[in-house]
């Protein structure tokens, strides 16, 4: 299906317009759709990733309540976990606590503070260097009144009109930095109207300042120039507002959001933009207690940069998950997630990008968390060691000659695949490619497998990466190979992706044969004749070689068995495809076969489904969907999708069994 059709399907699935008729998204169908890539239209990918990882439930009606709840949870984390112990004491001077800075007992706030500082320093170092080639992370987070993490807006009573600031006014600054921020914020809010008059005025004015540039005391030139840089502010939000009252923040800003940055200031005193600003702001009062007990400080008005938001997310994650803490590499995983969320077209999505990224990141981490736990590195069943061994076994299955060559050279998977697997390929390809790859990786999850099964497609893709440079690998020496694999030469993942798709289908085919290729015994492979195989050609060859790799003793028996099973499967497949029978879990030998053979998804099917209004989409899917005149196995040549898969499967078996 071409791009427009897929786009239309996505929009249809994700839209909330038909929320009464089709409130629930069919996750299986959705995942299959995402597997081929999510269209780049703004707004779609963000929603899709949220659904794929389970942040948003399939039931669309619950979306707004879930989002609200989760976001407020995140903001309460920010409020509570980021507080400094000394500020708490400032707030309650009458409450005496026995805590003091040198306290080393475990329940002391101060002791916790110092322990956290160590983590924070590590996070800070990594986050500053996240994706350095992309300017995005060094840019400020756009201001939004919806987000409690945006800087405060003071009540603006000065800039009701639309006049340009005179030079005198810009120069006439108090030592109080708040006045400058007031000024800029006022210009921002007033000028973001949609009225025609204001638009006309806007043309005259040149003070549409970019809303979230930071202002420092000493840096006058910067202030001046930034006030004259025209940059449109997202206008959707301010549609209904009139000119005079400025939009007050819908939520109260969280005062402690920047506290962690102060803690690690000392690391970067001499360089970076933050270092400069704090030095010049020498005279203004830092946290001071107001009479009502609220603490204000300078950096309430300061805007966050994107990498600072990432630092916050990682710090909160580390605090909430002391078992895994922070490990270098998590920032790389969070990078694409946050980038996607922050570039949402939906105003609300953009404002709450940080909160949503936090939860999406947490959900993703729950699958790959074991890769980051050092003690599980050598564990048999889980951890990164296990995953790499799995990759190695898979490589052995698909390309035994390459595998043998690498083993001979002692090129163990730890040397190249560690980075591929732990940070999920973010370091190998450019960010847009990584995001496209993640569409496929995140959507390839079987409901039947356990949570710790990890991402199978990721392993397929890694194998494909190896296979695509197979010739160079075979020809080169150990050091050449290492160099090649650590700077992967193919920058365009499309070719690798296609190979990965074919590998995946092979694997699924093998699964249907009831053979777990990952757990092949060592000795069963010693009988292997050493053929090269060409997986781009027919499946028959694969099937034949599979037979040969079986254990010697049971060789014949197994082929018989498989034949019998295969015939039965073939009949079933034929029956299912032509709508005669219904697949139940009880009649198949493996429950997973149902997932593979279940919906016959072609374009016609989906469109016809949408025209229906049936509600029983659980057990009767097959009958309802297959009441259409579907393909006869021999006639339809639909290579793509699950329908095509079922066809090819039946073709394969027919060829092999009935001969």
């Amino acid at each position: 299906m071409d791009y427009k059709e897929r786009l239309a399907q996505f929009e249809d699935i994700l839209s909330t317009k038909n929320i009464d008729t089709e409130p629930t998204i069919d996750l299986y169908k959705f995942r299959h759709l995402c597997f081929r890539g999510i269209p780049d239209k703004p707004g779609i990918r963000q929603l899709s990733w949220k659904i794929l990882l389970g942040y948003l439930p399939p039931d669309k009606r619950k979306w707004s309540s879930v989002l609200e709840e989760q976001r407020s949870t995140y903001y309460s984390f920010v409020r509570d976990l980021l507080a400094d112990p000394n500020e708490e004491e400032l707030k309650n001077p009458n409450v005496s606590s026995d805590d003091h800075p040198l306290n080393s007992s475990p329940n002391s706030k101060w002791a916790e503070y110092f322990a956290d500082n160590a983590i924070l320093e590590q996070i800070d170092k990594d986050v500053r260097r996240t994706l350095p080639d992309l300017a995005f992370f060094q840019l400020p987070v756009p201001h939004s009144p919806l987000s409690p993490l945006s800087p405060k807006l003071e009540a603006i009573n000065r800039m009701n009109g639309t006049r340009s600031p005179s030079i005198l006014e810009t120069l006439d600054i108090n030592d109080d930095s708040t006045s400058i921020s007031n000024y800029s914020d006022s210009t921002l809010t007033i000028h973001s109207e949609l009225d025609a008059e204001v638009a006309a005025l806007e043309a005259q004015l040149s003070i549409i300042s970019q809303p979230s540039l930071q202002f420092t005391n000493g840096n006058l030139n910067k202030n001046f120039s930034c006030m004259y840089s025209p940059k449109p502010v997202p206008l959707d939000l301010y549609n209904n507002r009139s000119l005079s009252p400025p939009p007050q923040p819908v939520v109260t800003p969280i005062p402690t959001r920047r506290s962690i940055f102060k803690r690690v200031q000392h690391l970067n005193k001499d360089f970076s933009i933050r270092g400069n600003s704090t030095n010049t702001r020498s005279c203004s009062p830092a946290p001071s207690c107001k009479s009502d007990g609220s603490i204000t400080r300078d950096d309430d008005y300061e805007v966050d940069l994107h990498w600072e938001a990432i630092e916050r997310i990682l710090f909160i994650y580390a605090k909430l998950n002391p078992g895994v803490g922070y490990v270098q590499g998590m920032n790389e995983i969070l990078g694409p997630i946050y980038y996607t969320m922050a570039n949402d077209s939906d105003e609300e999505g953009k404002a709450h990008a940080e909160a949503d990224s936090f939860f999406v990141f947490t959900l993703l981490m729950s699958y790959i968390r074991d890769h980051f736990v050092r003690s599980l590195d050598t564990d048999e069943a889980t951890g990164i060691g296990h995953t790499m061994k799995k990759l190695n076994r898979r490589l052995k299955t698909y390309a035994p000659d390459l595998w043998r060559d690498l083993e001979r050279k002692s090129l163990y998977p730890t040397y190249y695949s560690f980075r591929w697997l732990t940070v999920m390929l973010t370091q190998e390809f450019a960010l847009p490619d990584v995001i496209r790859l993640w569409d496929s990786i995140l959507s390839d999850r079987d409901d039947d497998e356990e949570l710790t099964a990890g991402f199978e497609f990721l392993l397929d893709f890694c194998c494909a990466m190896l296979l695509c440079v197979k010739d160079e690998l075979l020809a080169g020496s150990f050091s050449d190979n290492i160099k090649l694999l650590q700077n992967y030469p193919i920058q365009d993942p499309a070719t690798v992706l296609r190979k990965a798709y074919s590998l995946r289908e092979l694997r699924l085919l093998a699964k249907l044969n009831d053979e777990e290729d990952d757990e092949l015994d060592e000795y069963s492979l010693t009988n292997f004749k050493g053929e090269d195989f060409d997986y781009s050609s027919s499946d028959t060859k694969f099937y034949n070689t599979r037979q040969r790799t079986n254990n010697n003793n049971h060789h014949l028996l197994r082929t018989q068995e498989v034949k019998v099973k295969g015939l039965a499967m073939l009949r079933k497949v034929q029956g299912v495809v032509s709508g005669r029978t219904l697949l139940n879990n009880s009649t198949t030998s493996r429950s997973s076969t149902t997932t593979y053979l279940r919906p016959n998804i072609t374009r016609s099917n989906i469109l016809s489904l949408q025209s229906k209004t049936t509600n029983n989409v659980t057990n009767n899917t097959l009958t309802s969907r297959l009441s259409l005149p579907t393909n006869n196995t021999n006639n339809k040549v639909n290579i793509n999708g699950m329908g095509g898969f079922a066809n090819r499967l039946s073709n394969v078996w027919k060829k092999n069994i009935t001969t």
Partner: protein
Amino acid sequence: MVLVLVIGDLHIPYRIHDLPLKFKKLLVPGKIQQIICTGNVCDKETFDYLRTVAADIHIVKGDYDEFPNWPLSKIITHGPLRIGVLHGHQVIPVGDVESLSIVARQMDVDILLTGHTHRFEAIEYEGKFFVNPGSATGAYSGFSSEDIKPSFVLMDIQGVVVVTYVYQLVDGDVKVDKIEYRKNYDTNRYRLSHSVSYTRYG
């Protein structure tokens, strides 16, 4: 949020051989960002030990110190706060708050740290804060007849607010007290400049 350790009058090795063990356990490196020493450490080894607790150390010369090149007084700035340090043997009568206040006015500091009396004191007088950390070792002093309690001070400086934690060794146990000091700006001056800006903007 800067943690500053104020310590002095150790008199090692002449009057006493070492810091109390419990104090040593508290003073782990990594937590304290700066040390201000009021003098009379007396010894190179002791000075090196203090340097291991925090890298940033400011010290002034006391009357029994062995280093001739240390200054007699120092001024350290933390944001809007000016902190002055001197040993205190220069001020007569010893430990008198009014004489110290003269010194503070001369140095134009908000907080004055002195030693020499071997007695902990924290006084706010005429808007200025006078801290004497006492003797960290409890060394003998000629000025007081009673027993000297070992003590030192940890200041948590956040802008204009200083939260002072006093650690004293009382009957073999460490006792911690907390005192808060806030610098007052000259409010008249501040208000005036503010009104000027209002008239400009109409």
